[in-house]
């Protein structure tokens, strides 16, 4: 089986975020601390488990600047077979569609792919749509919010998954190829071992540019993006709340009254 996993480098949430205010984009290169998007760790682990259970090879791809090599190197240390970084000046400022379009072009170039794993969402872009968009562009089965892979039949090109959606679990059987976007809890991501890290540090990371991917540059980057950030603001503080003081009895009386007054509780 041929497995692709899409991983994104995101700023560490603890770290300072640097915006390019006029452009309304992130200064990704200026940000020191970056990590693998937390959801993508589950995507990598699920790819590794799938390879263990059903054989095959894993290709990890990431679209981003030089720094994205760190997350690809981490994937190599976790023993994925091959990595590519998708990068081009023309990609800067891409929106969700442009990102999905570039990733889809790389997946087509890789060819004969059975499963594409993505995370549920990125913690910076936070849109949670790239997986679904990839499926639509590629014409692959769209399996989102996946909490478990029940079985894969590589011969019959079928997969059965559980999707954790509102109110319960939906069990879906789908044709391969499929895009599977995974949620937290699907597995326990492993850590790379020292040997893996050492080995990965020596492997050169190939780059694919717009030309290599046959990407129409009019459709990507800030030129192609249809969504544009026009304003960035720090939300007003929620306003100093009221600390209720006194005996537990009094506090409970005050709070219950205040909440009942809101007429939300039926």
């Amino acid at each position, binding site marked *: 089986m041929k497995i692709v996993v899409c991983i994104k480098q995101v700023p560490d949430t603890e770290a300072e975020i640097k915006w390019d205010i006029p452009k309304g984009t992130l200064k990704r290169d200026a940000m020191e601390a970056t990590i693998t998007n937390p959801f993508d760790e589950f995507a990598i682990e699920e790819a590794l488990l799938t390879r263990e259970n059903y054989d095959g090879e894993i290709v990890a791809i990431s679209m981003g600047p030089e720094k994205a090599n760190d997350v690809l190197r981490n994937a190599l240390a976790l023993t994925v077979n091959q990595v590519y970084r998708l990068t081009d000046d023309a990609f800067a400022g891409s929106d969700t569609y442009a990102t999905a379009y570039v990733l889809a072009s790389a997946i087509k170039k890789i060819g004969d792919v059975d499963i594409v794993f993505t995370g549920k969402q990125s913690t910076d872009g936070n849109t949670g749509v790239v997986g679904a968009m990839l499926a639509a562009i590629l014409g692959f089965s769209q399996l989102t919010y996946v909490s478990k892979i029940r079985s894969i039949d590589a011969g019959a090109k079928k997969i059965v998954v559980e999707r954790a959606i509102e109110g319960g679990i939906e*069990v879906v059987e*789908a044709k391969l190829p499929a895009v599977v976007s995974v949620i937290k809890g699907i597995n326990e991501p492993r850590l790379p071992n020292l040997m893996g890290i050492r080995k990965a540090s020596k492997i050169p990371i190939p780059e694919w540019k717009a030309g290599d991917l046959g990407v129409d540059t009019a459709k990507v980057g800030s030129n192609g993006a249809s969504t544009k950030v026009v304003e960035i*603001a720090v939300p007003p503080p929620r306003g100093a709340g009221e600390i209720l003081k006194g005996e*537990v009895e009094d506090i409970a009386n005050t709070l219950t009254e205040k909440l009942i007054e809101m007429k939300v509780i039926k």
Partner: protein
Amino acid sequence: MANDVWVYIEQKEGAVSPMSFELLGIGKAMAQDLGSNVCAFVIGDSVDAIAKEAIAYGASKVFVVEGPVYKNFLPDAYSKAANFLLDKYKPEVALFRATSQGTDVAAATAALLGFGLCTDTIGLKVEGGQVKMTRAAFGGNYMVTVVNEKAKPQIITVRPKSFAMPEKNDANQGEVVKESFTVAEADLNAKVLEFIKAATTVNLVEADIIVSGGRGLGKPEGFELLKQLADVLGGAVGASRAAVDSGWIPYEHQVGQTGKTVKPKIYIACGISGAIQHLAGMRTSDCIVAINKDPDAPIFKAATFGIVGDYAQIVPKLIEKFKAKLNK
């Protein structure tokens, strides 16, 4: 009309909840500012009753694509049908709820149309004929306002409960437009085998009231107490990641950056410190109550009402008082 505002009405095997119609309210306000109409669109199998209800909630027209292939929700068939309708009528805006189904259809449809979309919007306004969408970024530390210049229609997903429910009036008149569009059974790439209902309905995203617990509960039994409070209030139970990682409660309950984003009317945080990743998931709640024994816990900065103390003493008192005052 070309600059109409369309609202996607989510249904599952013919069933809808009133919340499915919530965006007809903001949709109507936007349509007024654009000088156009708010319309609904529904995809499913036999959805006449749903179309009628959409009119009662304010839709002036309802566009319907029906057929047995649409009985179960399948993102592929639904997004092809949505793409067909939106491409044919080219409204200005198509609003979807940011639920699993809403997001699935919105994302795939935008991709088929070849445009980016704006997701999980919490603010919407029309200025000089342009739609401005506001959403939280980076765990709610920033609010960004986005415009979608090239797309037609502009696809937008909206965080549930961000806007007021529209009034329902069964006397409303409207038109139902049925379009035929079908996907051959053989072309469907998936099928639903079964739906396993959650033992506890965890529908955090729809809940008006959430009682949430963190590591400060100290033990899994703490959640039994919170469940009692949630039951009295008719609410759902949420949790911090620390509580989930401790194995005290399943992941479906997690609120925060790597859990669910919620916007209830009342959020009661018990034994939760208020890390930015937790706040990311709940800071837009209307009213936040924090119960924490550390007066310096960051959660108090976000709280509407704070109580400094031990949850194990306070929560039972609250249950007792609510029961008495609500005659339960």
